[in-house]
């Protein structure tokens, strides 16, 4: 693991106004349109939008499950305590050419470093969580900051949204108006008739109304919990900012509208399938793929995860299959 300080920052560039950063063997700089990543064996360029939208998810999800590919070259791999930052590691051509590179960091300092970059490179009015139609553009020279957007906390219910003491429901009054793409979604809530003494235990809420009021995209949030089984519904519009290579099987249930998934081999990036999901469709994403979703209209997606800490080793060692069911 790298013993070096996690991050060093330059003074702001005289022209662009952005700082440059070093984290271990990696160097990062941005200009008006692009982010440039360098490592001891290579260089890579991404659009600032792709980089910031992906970086925002990696930060908000605390490196998430498994691999977060910002694109086909750069990303992170979570070992839950340590995190690998890599370039070309899951790209067949880079590996064959010997240009791939990976470095392991303690999760805490790397997270702090990522937050520093995200803060410096996110301008006033640009929200990396928002759909492109709902936010300013990320490009141009440095212009202020948007901490209110990038420091949002991920919602994680302990038992279920709406229970006493748990994550609250969303409403106009607590700052969550209905999204423009969900203007037609009924806002009726279930009728609850508890007997005296059971007010806190007889509980239900409208998940569809809740999701219609989400102010972010591609940000799965825990809404109900059965031991390690987590319902993480989310509202989706435009493109999932990362190619997610999970270290376990995850499941999708499409609750509304449609998402198209591009599925590639997790290690090589070779295309494997295109999965079209319409309302009511449910399917698994195997543990040996990476996936990226496209949602033309804002849609409601139920992401279902098994949070058990044992699974990554079971799958990596071949003791558990990469698919959930054989038939």
């Amino acid at each position: 693991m790298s013993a070096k300080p996690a991050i060093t920052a330059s003074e702001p560039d005289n022209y662009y106004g952005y700082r440059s950063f070093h984290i271990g063997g990696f160097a990062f700089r941005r200009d008006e349109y692009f982010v440039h990543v360098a490592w001891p064996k290579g260089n890579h360029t991404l659009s600032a939008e792709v980089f910031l939208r992906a970086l925002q998810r990696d930060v908000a999800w605390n490196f998430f499950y498994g691999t977060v590919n910002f694109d086909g070259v750069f990303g992170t791999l979570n070992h839950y305590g340590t995190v690998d930052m890599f370039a070309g590691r899951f790209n067949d051509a880079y590996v064959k050419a010997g240009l791939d590179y990976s470095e392991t960091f303690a999760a805490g300092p790397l997270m702090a470093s990522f937050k520093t970059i995200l803060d410096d490179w996110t301008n006033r009015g640009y929200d990396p969580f928002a759909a492109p139609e709902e936010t300013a553009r990320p490009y141009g020279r440095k212009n202020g900051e948007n901490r209110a957007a990038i420091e949002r906390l991920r919602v994680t219910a302990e038992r279920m949204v709406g229970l006493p003491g748990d994550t609250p429901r969303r409403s106009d009054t607590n700052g969550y108006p209905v999204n423009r793409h969900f203007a037609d979604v009924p806002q009726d809530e279930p009728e609850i008739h508890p007997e005296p003494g059971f007010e806190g235990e007889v509980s239900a809420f409208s998940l569809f109304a809740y999701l219609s009021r989400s102010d972010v995209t591609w940000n799965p949030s825990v809404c109900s919990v059965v031991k390690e089984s987590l319902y993480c519904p989310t509202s989706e519009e435009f493109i999932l900012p990362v190619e997610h290579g999970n270290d376990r099987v995850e499941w999708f249930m499409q609750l509304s509208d449609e998402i198209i998934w591009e599925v590639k081999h997790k290690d090589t990036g070779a295309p494997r399938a295109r999965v079209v999901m319409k309302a009511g469709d449910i399917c698994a994403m195997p543990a040996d793929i990476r996936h990226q979703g496209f949602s033309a209209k804002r849609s409601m997606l139920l992401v279902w995860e098994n949070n058990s800490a044992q699974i990554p080793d079971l799958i990596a060692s071949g003791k558990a299959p990469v698919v959930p069911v054989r038939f």
Partner: protein
Amino acid sequence: MSDVKTIFGSLQSFHKGGVEVIDDDPRNYVFSNVFDVAAKAKAFERIAVGKNFEYVVECVRAEGTSPWYTCAHDEFALVLDGKVEIRLFKPDRALLAPDRSGAVALTERPTGRAMGRILAGRGHLALLPKNALYQFHAEAPSVMTIQTIQGPLTIERWAEICQTA
């Protein structure tokens, strides 16, 4: 006035997507559709449409009145079409060992107290609290899913419900 149209599925109207293979086996995706499964199901069969180790998502066609069930852990019912009444009842003592997985159906209701009821419509997510008894009632055919752990009532019929080619 907005002209946006959000599309939800129902027993009467659903459209399935699917897996378009490039270099893969569609079975790897265990792809089904809850309305399609419910349309072909008997009332209150608990058919697994998702499975991840011991955890399952069951699809249920709610029609008429179900047996009483109990479960040693929380479960969550999500209504996706129609209207379902959920009746909750607290038995005088827990009926299952605390480490028991999945729901169990009861032949008769033991002594205890009514906890209340929930009238849930499309998109509503309801807690089925651990160790409570619960019963579903639907006047018209309705569809829900249950987030739970695989148990004696969980039916697996993957080859019948999933895309295979």
